[in-house]
């Protein structure tokens, strides 16, 4: 597999639970190519396997079968140590519940991945300050997570995911716990990241979040059942608000 245009790829990617009669095909032979810089949304009813797929792509879970390639390198059969290293350096995760360390300030949370990857504390601090500035929270660096709004907490979590300049950002229901205003905060940040060329794969059940992606795949029973290109739009916003005469 030498298609380096795709930063993230899977072939025949499968994850089964149980066996015999009770075999559940959570992810069933999924082939996926995510070109660099693409924002991809994965949608589907709960239990369709979309979160499991994201975990397989990011090396949080091991596939039963199939392959995952990141920037032309096969990652599904790395050993635990190699996998952990790959996750730290090349993948950024964003979760529905933020998963911030409650005892640490916003800046310390964002510093953490860089420190774990072996960067100097000075480099980690500088990177965290830059990222918090970039996400518009330059004045909240010393706040603890509980002192921040939901949208701010998720933005800090996104900054943390970006700390080691990952090849791919993987987001599992990133707006699932947010109200409309906070959702818009997060979507604006994603739009900025997209403009900067960040590759992003997100799982969501919210059509309004999914519709802002470049591409939307629908999942059902562990398989892709639809693949829609959304970027570009229809140029018919006038129709939408009833101004077409």
């Amino acid at each position, binding site marked *: 597999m030498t298609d380096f245009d795709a930063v993230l790829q899977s072939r025949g990617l499968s994850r089964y639970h149980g066996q015999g009669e009770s075999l559940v095909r959570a992810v069933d032979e999924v082939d996926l190519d995510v070109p660099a810089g693409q924002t991809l949304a994965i949608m589907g009813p709960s239990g369709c396997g979309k979160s499991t797929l994201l975990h397989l792509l990011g090396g949080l879970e091991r596939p039963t079968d199939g392959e995952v390639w990141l920037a032309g390198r096969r990652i599904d059969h790395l050993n635990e140590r190699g996998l952990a290293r790959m996750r730290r350096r090349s993948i950024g995760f964003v979760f529905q519940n933020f998963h911030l360390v409650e005892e640490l300030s916003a800046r310390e949370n964002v510093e953490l991945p860089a420190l774990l990857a072996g960067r100097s504390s000075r480099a980690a601090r500088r990177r965290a300050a830059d990222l918090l500035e970039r996400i518009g929270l330059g004045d909240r660096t010393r706040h603890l997570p509980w002192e921040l709004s939901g949208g701010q907490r998720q933005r800090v979590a996104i900054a943390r995911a970006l700390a080691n300049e990952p090849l791919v950002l993987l987001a599992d229901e990133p707006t699932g716990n947010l109200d*409309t*205003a906070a959702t*818009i905060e997060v*979507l*604006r940040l994603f*739009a900025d990241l997209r403009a900067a060329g960040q590759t992003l794969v997100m799982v969501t059940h919210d*059509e*309004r979040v*999914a*519709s*802002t*992606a470049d591409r*939307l795949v629908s999942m059902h029973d562990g398989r892709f059942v*639809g693949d*829609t290109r*959304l*970027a*570009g*739009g*229809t*140029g*018919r*916003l006038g*129709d*939408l*608000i*009833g101004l077409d005469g």
Partner: protein
Amino acid sequence: MQDAVLAMLAKEPSHGYRLRARLRQALGPLGESMNAGQVYVTLARLEKAGLVAAERSDGLPDRPDRKVYALTPAGQQRVSAWLSEVNWPKANLTEFHLKLAAAAAARLADPVELVDAQRRELLRRLGEAQRAVLAEPDDSTAGLLLEGVALRLQADLRWLDACERVWSKPKNESEDA
């Protein structure tokens, strides 16, 4: 209603009363407000436009309810165009509903594929509305209008999911019973 009547004739030529019965079946309680004359008025217009041709049944008086209506080639073309067009009719769910019913009855197109094409179109529009929201400042009143547009599109998308669930089940042939 013209398009729906044409699409129903695509299955086979039919009497007006039969068409009316099929429309009422597709519409359920919503079809009860449709009066008997409406179908004949529509058929007369379609005949005048050259989209259907009427043939009198042998030995019966020349009354509209005795005629058998059939599509002309121009009518066929118009049905195909209607089925493949993905314009979301303004607040006209009925038209889309009838399109699915007619497509299924005449086996002209797979209703699930029609739903899918429509969903893709609505998602693109929703994306457009959402991107416009993101570009507006927080205190913008235009953002409020776009919010309304997005919420309505979202409701339409949920309804399309329901359409897909129903039309992806195999149908029994009770339609013409």
